[in-house]
C-alpha cells in the first residue's frame, strides 16, 4: 500500500480540521476554563481579589460616565422640586439654623469641660475621624450580594476595612480597594457581621446581614428585652469600626428575635463617606475643625 507523503496540502487540511475541532469543542473548552477559574478562585482568593480590583479600576470611569447623566437628571428633578418649595424650605432652614447655633454653643462648652476632665483624669483620647467622600457609580451584586462601587481608592487614602457612612448612619465597610475605586459591602449583605451596642440597655450583639432590608441582631444576652426603636451603634469591639457610629433602630421580629431598620436609606445612596478612624485630627470634618478652632480662641 503506497504511503502518502506529507505535504503542505496535508498541513492545510490539518489546520482546517483543527479549527473545526476547536470550534466544535469550544463549548467544552470554555466550560472547563470556567470550572478551572472557579477552583482557582477558591485556592488563590488573594490573587483573584487583586485582579478583580484592577478590572474594577479600569471599569470605574466607564461606569461613572454611564451613571453621570442619571445623577444629573436626578439632581435636576430634585432642584426643580426644591425651587417649588423654596419659601417653606427657607423658613425651615432659618429656624433650624437658630437651633443649630444654640447646639453649637452647648457643644463647645461641653467639649471644653470634657477636655478639662480628660486632663484631670489623664485619659487617653481616641484618635479623631477623617472622612473621604466618594460617589456611588454602581449598585452591584444583583440578588446575591449587596455591594456598591464608589469612586475613591488607594490614591485618595482608602484602605480595606474602612467604615462607609451616609449623613444618617453606617452603611457598610470597604472590602476591596483599587487605585481609583473601591467596593463597599453593605450591612445587609449575607456576609456582613458587625459588633454593635444597643443604646439604653447597653446590650451587645452582632449585627448580621441576611440580604434582606433589615439585618438581624445575633448573640444577644439570653435575658435581653430590647425596646423597639432603640438606637443601635457600633460597639468598637474587634477593632473593625470606631465605637458609637449610628447604624439603625431596633425592630422586634417576634419570638425573641430582633433586627434593625437602618438609619440610612440603603436603596437610595448616591454619595458615601469613608471613615478613617486611625487618622488624627479629623481634618476633613468641618464641624470638628470649627469646634476646635473656637475652643482655641476661648
Amino acid at each position, binding site marked *: 500500500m503506497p504511503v502518502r507523503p506529507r505535504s503542505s496540502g496535508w498541513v492545510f487540511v490539518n489546520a482546517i480540521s483543527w479549527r473545526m475541532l476547536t470550534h466544535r469543542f469550544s463549548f467544552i473548552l470554555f466550560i472547563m476554563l*470556567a470550572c478551572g477559574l472557579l477552583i482557582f478562585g477558591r485556592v488563590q482568593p488573594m490573587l483573584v481579589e487583586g485582579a478583580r480590583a484592577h478590572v474594577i479600576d479600569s*471599569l470605574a470611569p466607564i*461606569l461613572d460616565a454611564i451613571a453621570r447623566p442619571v445623577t444629573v437628571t436626578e439632581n435636576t428633578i430634585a432642584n426643580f422640586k426644591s425651587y417649588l418649595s423654596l419659601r417653606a424650605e427657607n423658613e425651615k432652614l432659618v429656624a433650624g439654623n437658630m437651633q443649630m447655633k444654640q447646639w453649637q454653643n452647648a457643644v463647645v462648652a461641653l467639649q471644653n469641660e470634657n477636655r478639662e476632665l480628660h486632663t484631670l483624669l489623664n485619659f487617653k483620647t481616641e484618635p479623631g475621624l477623617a472622612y473621604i467622600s466618594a460617589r456611588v457609580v454602581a449598585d452591584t451584586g*444583583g440578588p*446575591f*450580594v449587596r455591594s456598591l462601587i464608589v469612586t475613591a481608592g488607594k490614591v485618595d487614602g482608602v484602605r480595606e476595612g474602612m467604615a462607609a457612612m451616609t449623613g444618617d448612619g453606617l452603611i457598610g465597610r470597604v472590602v476591596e480597594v483599587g487605585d481609583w475605586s473601591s467596593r463597599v459591602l453593605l450591612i445587609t449583605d*449575607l456576609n456582613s457581621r458587625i459588633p454593635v451596642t444597643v443604646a439604653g440597655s447597653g446590650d451587645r450583639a452582632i449585627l448580621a446581614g441576611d440580604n434582606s*432590608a433589615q439585618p438581624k441582631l445575633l448573640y444577644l444576652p439570653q435575658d435581653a428585652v430590647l425596646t423597639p426603636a432603640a438606637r443601635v451603634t457600633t460597639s468598637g469591639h474587634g477593632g473593625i469600626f470606631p465605637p458609637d457610629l449610628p447604624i439603625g433602630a431596633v425592630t422586634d421580629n417576634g419570638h425573641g428575635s430582633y433586627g434593625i431598620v437602618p438609619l440610612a436609606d440603603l436603596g437610595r445612596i448616591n454619595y458615601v463617606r469613608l471613615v478613617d478612624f486611625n487618622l488624627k485630627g479629623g481634618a476633613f470634618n468641618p464641624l470638628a475643625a470649627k469646634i476646635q478652632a473656637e475652643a482655641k480662641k476661648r
Partner: protein
Amino acid sequence: MLDVVWQRLDSGARRSLPFVTTLVFTLLGVVAWPLPHFGPVAPPLGLIALYYWTIHRPDLFRPGMAFTIGLLSDIINFLPPGLSALLFVAAHQLVLRQRRFFAGHSFLMTWFGFVLMMSLVMTLEWLLLCLIRWQGLPFFPVFMQALLAMVFFPLPCWLLIRLQRMAFSQG
C-alpha cells in the same frame, strides 16, 4: 486606499456590535439607577442581549464572547469568578441548539424562550452559589429579578432590533 480602510473599520464596527452591545447592557445593568431598592432586582440586561444575539447573529456572537461577558459580570457583581461565565456559556449553547425553535415563530415564542433560559440560568446560579458558599441564600430576590426581567424583556429587545436593523440592513 482610504476608502478600503474606512470600509474595513465600518465592517469591523458592525461585526463587533453584538459583543459591544452585550457589554454595554451588562454595565447598564449595574449602574446606580435613581430607583429605590432597584439594584438587587435589576433585570440582567447582559443576559437579555446574550439571548438576542445568540438567536439572531450566532455567527457574530461566539462562546468566547459569552464567557468574557460572564466573567466580567462575576467581577463586577462580586461573585466567584467563573460562575456566571460557566452559566453564560451553557446558556449560549442551549439557545444556539434551540434557536430555530425560538426565533422561527412569533415574538411571543422568543419571549417564552427567554423566560425558559433565564429561569434555568438564575436557578442554577442560585443553586451553585449556595453550594460554593455552603449556605442557604434567599430565593425570593432571585424570583423577583426573574419576574422583572420577564416583564422588562420587550424594551431592551426592541432597542436591539433597532440596532440590528441599522447595522445589518444592507446585509
